[in-house]
């Protein structure tokens, strides 16, 4: 007979370093101006930049622990109580672990709950477990859900602000690392809409979203260096999908490349193909996307090389005849 003794180990959890970021800034700003905004975390608070809000507004922050199904249900109840919950954790956990809860409690009677999923696509090194390569497909399949894949800090902030003002649920992918600001002209600070970047009427064309837009711009720079002109249509909102902008952009081209940090089916490529196929535009639309397989473990740069999403590979795809 083995006798089990109960013992305690003093686990030292270092105090979380409070990280300021574009995301924490927008939460703080909304906390000041919107009394009803509350933030919910599912553990991981220190890695999703919600601690500045928690420190500033302790009565409007709850860490619900590793219990995502309950987290979404409680967010729904808080929304019914008149609050505007912003639920922040890793994208994999919001979308996969609590899919039915999101569907039933947030979309059957739509509520203005904001879901923010960190580490989108291949921005985490943990193979499969922490790689939401399918989150846009999952969330995009739900009635009344808005889906946004921002490409830079300004767009992430705009997406959060606009989602807080919506009476419907929104899923926003959040890149943790700061990205180069998109070269957008005449920007409206509240904007989160499709925009053409780079050359007007380029001889080559990309349509991209989220981190994919940064990759498309890298590929465009390479192509420009070899004498091409390149247009990039950046589409941050995957649902509702801006079909008119897509169709107008595609019209002059016989070939385009879509670029996304997501699987092609259920993502940007599928949405663009679906928008174009019924118009009669005879364009070939090639996907630069995560293949139908779990990406390898490693840094984002390593994974891009392994799955053919480097700037060079994307540029080659654009030149494919």
């Amino acid at each position: 007979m083995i006798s089990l003794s109960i013992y305690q180990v003093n686990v030292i959890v270092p105090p979380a370093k409070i990280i300021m970021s574009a995301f924490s800034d927008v939460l703080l700003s909304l906390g000041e101006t919107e009394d009803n905004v509350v933030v919910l975390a599912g553990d991981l608070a220190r890695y999703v930049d919600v601690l500045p809000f928690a420190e500033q507004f302790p009565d409007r922050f709850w860490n619900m622990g590793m219990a995502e199904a309950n987290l979404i249900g409680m967010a729904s109840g808080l929304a019914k109580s008149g609050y505007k919950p912003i639920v922040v954790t890793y994208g994999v956990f919001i979308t996969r672990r609590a899919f039915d809860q999101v569907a039933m409690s947030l979309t059957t009677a739509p509520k203005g709950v904001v879901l923010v999923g960190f580490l989108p696509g291949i921005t985490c090194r943990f193979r499969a477990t922490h790689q939401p390569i399918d989150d846009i497909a999952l969330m995009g399949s739900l009635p009344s859900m808005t889906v946004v894949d921002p490409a830079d800090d300004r767009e992430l902030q705009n997406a959060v602000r606009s989602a807080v003002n919506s009476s419907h649920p929104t899923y926003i992918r959040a890149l943790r690392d700061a990205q180069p600001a998109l070269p957008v002209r005449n920007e409206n600070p509240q904007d989160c809409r499709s925009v053409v970047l780079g050359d007007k009427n380029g001889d080559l064309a990309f349509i991209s979203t989220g981190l994919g837009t940064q990759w498309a711009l890298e590929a465009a720079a390479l192509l420009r260096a070899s004498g091409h002109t390149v247009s990039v249509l950046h589409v941050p909102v995957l649902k509702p999908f801006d079909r008119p902008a897509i169709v107008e952009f595609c019209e002059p081209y016989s070939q385009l490349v879509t670029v996304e940090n997501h699987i092609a089916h259920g993502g940007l490529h599928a949405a663009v193909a679906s928008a174009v196929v019924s118009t009669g535009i005879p364009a070939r639309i090639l996907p630069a996307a995560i293949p139908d397989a779990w990406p390898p473990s490693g840094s984002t740069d390593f994974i891009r090389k392994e799955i053919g999403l480097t700037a060079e590979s994307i540029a080659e795809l654009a030149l494919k005849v």
Partner: protein
Amino acid sequence: MRNKSRTRKRANSIRQIAIQVASYSGEAYIGQALGVADILACVFELGIQTENDRFVLSPGHYGLALYAANADSYDFAELCTYGKDGSVFEQSPVEGIPGVEVTGGSLGQGLSQAAGLALGARARGGAGRIFCLISDGELQEGQTWEACLAISHHKLTNLIVLLDRNGVQVDGRTASILNVEPVAAKFTAFGLDVEEVDGHDLDAIEAALLNAMDPANINPRAIIFNTRLGMGVPEFENASYPHYISAASEVWERALHLLQNEPID
């Protein structure tokens, strides 16, 4: 002294209305509606006192019971379209139907939403109690236990968990499919105070509700109601498949007749 016959009348009325409504299509989750009629009668007569108080039905299949309890606020002819094509009164109701607080047919999700309502009510200054009915089958869903952790952690004493322990799920006896017992010990281990009563003894139900509503309570409270599917109509109590009942019109007529002649005072 409260007039006890009021809850007795309300329970009888819930049963009669449920039978009448179900008789039009001839099939319904009538066993569940009759099984919780006594609990709902007490909750609506005694528990729901102000507009801040809410009743959350987690197992959506019990919708007929909720409709019958709220029948005064509906057009009766419309209510009698229950379960028919195009009816507002769906068998497994979706949030937004008057009186329906949550979409509960995908089981195990109501308690978390009730906990969110309770947290929200408390954050707003404390007014209002949330009564959440869950079924024993829902204890098989992990989310119910996630919710219990949260209710206990946040000391949501303004939330009262009402467990309908009827012992039956779609495929048979809960004890034979995936045993959820001992339920009281589990709730206690999760930090809830538990009271167990006969779910058809109106005096006992009322007393348990009053205990649970005591503002001096330190822990959130769960009441375990031992109930019988189809209670009040022997033909339904003894049905071979009590989870969902389909019966000829004379069966519904006999049931209604029986309830109309039930001594109340």
